[in-house]
């Protein structure tokens, strides 16, 4: 009993940092509608800056002073990011900003590596709070008790700030209707900057406050971002008390999980989130998101059209070039094209549900990795012939997507995104922790193609045929009645339902189709590399696909393919550099700022400006 209580206290103490970071993310999303992937990076910066300041400042005053200063410093950095990067792209299509925040993640990762080095830092113990207190005979670190006492104070302070001050009124008003707030004469730009700085500062404080328990390392950013999203979503987007309850819930559950069911820890919080979202689609204390509340931003939609003669000619020319490539190109170029094709198909499958269906999935890697693992497991355990195993990749991924989609399509917007993320984490943790079947992070190796394909050139043609075939199939479907029905459900679900369209069923079929195509890409991937590891199922893999879709342009059909080609090529050249993440991050941010409609969208607009009125694409 005493042991259980001690576990409970550990969970409560862990909730402090999590709540701080999550409340920051929630505030930022509520006001600016930016899903800030980089929030974990601010947390990491908080930890590193905190360590440095604590080394400089002596004693108890120095310790707590360092924490305070850290928050201010990270808040300033956040304000800088908002002013330099995000402020320029608020009018871009919805969610486009998350690409920029992804660039910020990369930049901060390498900057932290440059400044603090690759070694983990141990956090200093809090002066005067080094020992333990005995509670019912169990030792509980003194610092934990202090954290437990501090967290409600922080909640109260934030609650006071939001409900009782002028800034709080502005924040709440902007959360409900930011255009109205702008119309009432509030300087939105500075409100957004202020909120972003406050949110970042909270993340920084979170990072500094957990130092005596956890220290600082370069993996902190991605390690916490999943948990933070989970907390915000379980609590309900924009609800501070909700975030508090969820942080406590997750941390306590996690503490018990570590003690009793260690293999569950990776997945426990995602299971809880999935359960909460299925029962309460808008989180514990969240309210229903009213879609389209802020109206259309950016350029008005134009009807999509297949390519005119010029577009077809260009595509054919490109395909002929690719088909002829093995005749003169060096092997590494073939490998690069295979990588690009696989990624392009993966991205195109996400683009299909995201661009055409309006379903933003944060967990698309589940189907890519799922397909790869399905094929690899068959080969590894039962020596299934490659051809058969390969066929199972899209099939298994499609069935998986059908199952996951069945739960997810009831939700929309960010909640949909989060539930897909939760399910993909489930799949990932299966691959990672079910070692007897999947060999965990040792991965499945020696998964090679059948003999007749086991050479660079045959496999190149297989990839080209299936990859290009898959992409063209998806494009064809977009122009087919089904694609139109999917788009109708995105444009106006109410109108679609009122004209006999079963929007949910259409979306589910589309989701399964996209999953199958991602699985096909996964199948191509695993036999080209000869191995598969749990990394192919990670959040970062899902984010990669998301980034290239937005980078290429959500509203253009070629967006996913162009974005994927761009990204794979750039990465291919940059990874030779020591600080390639920094360069890549800056490239992404530059593209985002210079081309707010994505690469294809912006090129199209420029082309349209050069030769007006000719190309409303003939049929």
């Amino acid at each position, binding site marked *: 009993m005493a042991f259980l209580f001690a576990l409970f206290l550990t969970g409560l103490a862990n909730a402090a940092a999590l709540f701080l970071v999550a409340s920051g993310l929630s505030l930022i999303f509520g006001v600016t509608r930016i899903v800030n992937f980089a929030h974990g990076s601010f947390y990491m910066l908080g930890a590193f800056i905190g360590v440095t300041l604590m080394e400089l400042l002596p004693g108890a005053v120095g310790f707590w002073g360092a924490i305070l200063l850290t928050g201010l410093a990270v808040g300033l950095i956040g304000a800088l990011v908002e002013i330099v990067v995000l402020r320029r792209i608020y009018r871009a299509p919805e969610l486009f900003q998350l690409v920029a925040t992804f660039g910020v993640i990369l930049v901060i990762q390498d900057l932290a590596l440059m400044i603090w080095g690759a070694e983990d830092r141990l956090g200093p113990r809090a002066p005067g709070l080094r020992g333990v207190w005995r509670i019912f005979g169990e030792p509980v670190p003194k610092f934990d008790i202090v954290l437990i006492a501090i967290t409600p104070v922080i909640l109260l302070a934030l609650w006071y700030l939001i409900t009782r001050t002028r800034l709080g009124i502005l924040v709440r008003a902007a959360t409900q209707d930011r255009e109205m707030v702008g119309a009432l004469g509030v300087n939105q730009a500075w409100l957004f900057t202020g909120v972003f700085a406050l949110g970042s500062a909270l993340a920084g404080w979170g990072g500094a406050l957990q130092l005596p328990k956890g220290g600082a390392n370069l993996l902190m950013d991605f390690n916490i971002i999943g948990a933070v999203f989970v907390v915000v979503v379980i609590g309900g987007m924009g609800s501070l008390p909700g975030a508090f309850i969820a942080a406590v819930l997750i941390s306590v559950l996690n503490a018990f999980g570590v003690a009793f069911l260690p293999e569950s820890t990776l997945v426990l919080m995602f299971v809880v989130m999935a359960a909460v979202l299925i029962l309460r689609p808008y989180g514990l204390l969240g309210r229903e998101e009213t879609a389209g509340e802020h109206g*259309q931003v950016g350029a008005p*939609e134009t009807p999509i059209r297949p390519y005119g003669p010029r577009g077809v000619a260009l595509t054919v020319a490109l395909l002929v070039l690719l088909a002829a490539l093995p005749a003169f190109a060096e092997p590494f170029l073939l490998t690069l094209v295979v990588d690009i094709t696989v990624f392009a198909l993966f991205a195109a499958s996400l683009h299909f549900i995201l661009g055409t269906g309006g379903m933003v999935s944060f967990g698309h890697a589940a189907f890519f990795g799922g397909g790869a693992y399905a094929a690899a497991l068959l080969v590894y355990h039962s020596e299934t012939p490659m051809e058969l195993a390969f066929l199972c990749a899209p099939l298994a991924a499609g069935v998986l997507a059908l199952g996951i989609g069945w739960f997810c399509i009831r939700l929309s917007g960010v909640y949909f995104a989060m539930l897909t993320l939760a399910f993909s984490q489930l799949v990932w943790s299966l691959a990672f922790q079910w070692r007897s079947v999947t060999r965990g992070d040792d991965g499945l190796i020696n998964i090679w193609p059948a003999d007749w394909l086991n050479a660079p050139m045959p496999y190149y043609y297989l990839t080209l045929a299936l990859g290009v075939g898959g992409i063209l199939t998806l494009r064809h479907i977009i122009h087919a*009645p089904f*694609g*139109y029905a999917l*788009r109708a459900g995105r*444009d106006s679900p*109410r109108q679609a339902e009122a004209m006999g369209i*079963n929007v949910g069923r*259409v979306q589910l079929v589309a989701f399964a189709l996209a999953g199958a195509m991602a699985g096909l890409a996964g199948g191509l991937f695993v036999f080209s590399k000869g191995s598969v590891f749990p990394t192919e199922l990670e959040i970062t893999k899902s984010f990669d696909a998301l980034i290239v879709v937005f980078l290429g342009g959500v509203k253009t059909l070629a967006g996913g393919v162009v974005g994927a080609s761009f990204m794979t090529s750039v990465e291919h050249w940059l990874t030779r550099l020591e600080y390639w993440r920094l360069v890549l991050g800056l490239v992404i941010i530059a593209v985002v700022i210079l081309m707010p409609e994505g690469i294809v969208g912006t090129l199209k607009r420029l082309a349209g400006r050069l030769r007006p009125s000719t190309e409303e694409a003939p049929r």
Partner: protein
Amino acid sequence: MTEILRADTLRKSYDGFLAVDGVSFSVREGELKALIGPNGAGKSTCFNMLTGQLKPSSGEVFLRGARITGKRPREIWRLGVGRTFQITGTYASMSVAENVQMALISHHRRLFGFGARAWKLYRAEALDLLRSVALDDQADRPCSVLAYGDLKRLELAIALSHRPRLLLMDEPTAGMAPSARIDMMQLVADVVRDQGLSVLFTEHDMDVVFAHAHHIMVLNRGKLIADGNAEAVRNDPRVQEVYLGGGTLFKEARDA
């Protein structure tokens, strides 16, 4: 004339507030019937219960004698009921013609078609429908650039595309210029006459209502206070109290 739609003591309460309080009425074949009432009277709530967007707290809806209470909007649409909304909901990423074609594709149950090119399907039919609302000259424009009045007419074309026997129009002329309002309602009246379909509509413009509706119902604070022809409704003391009590003469101060 036989009745096509009947509402039987419909009730909708929100946290104890009765938005619609025991409303019963019927719409007959070939009838153009108006549902009027001050803002907040419960007209849209009433409409949404008829077409399945809202579930009534109690009461029943019958379509040609068959109970349709609680059915989904898409099921009611398949039974031959068209619907337009107070705030138009068209597909911004499609052209004007494609918006109509979408409804035709759904009507012909080809939503799960993966082979055909959607913009080639039922284009002639769509153009005919657009011609009937005088929008055919804008068929290939993006829907997102249409003027509001044109959007309203597009919505009418969409609603007519599955040859409904009953059409429910929530404020068909809201946001239109006065002359356009008369034209719009004349269009609806012509359709009713030519195709013999029934229309139930809500409207704020009393000129439009009294010029076209065969019968008028008046809703006030969730209760039906009058149901009859124009003359009877005009002379009903309770209606006069609702509309004249505030000193305005059959013309409301605009709604929100």
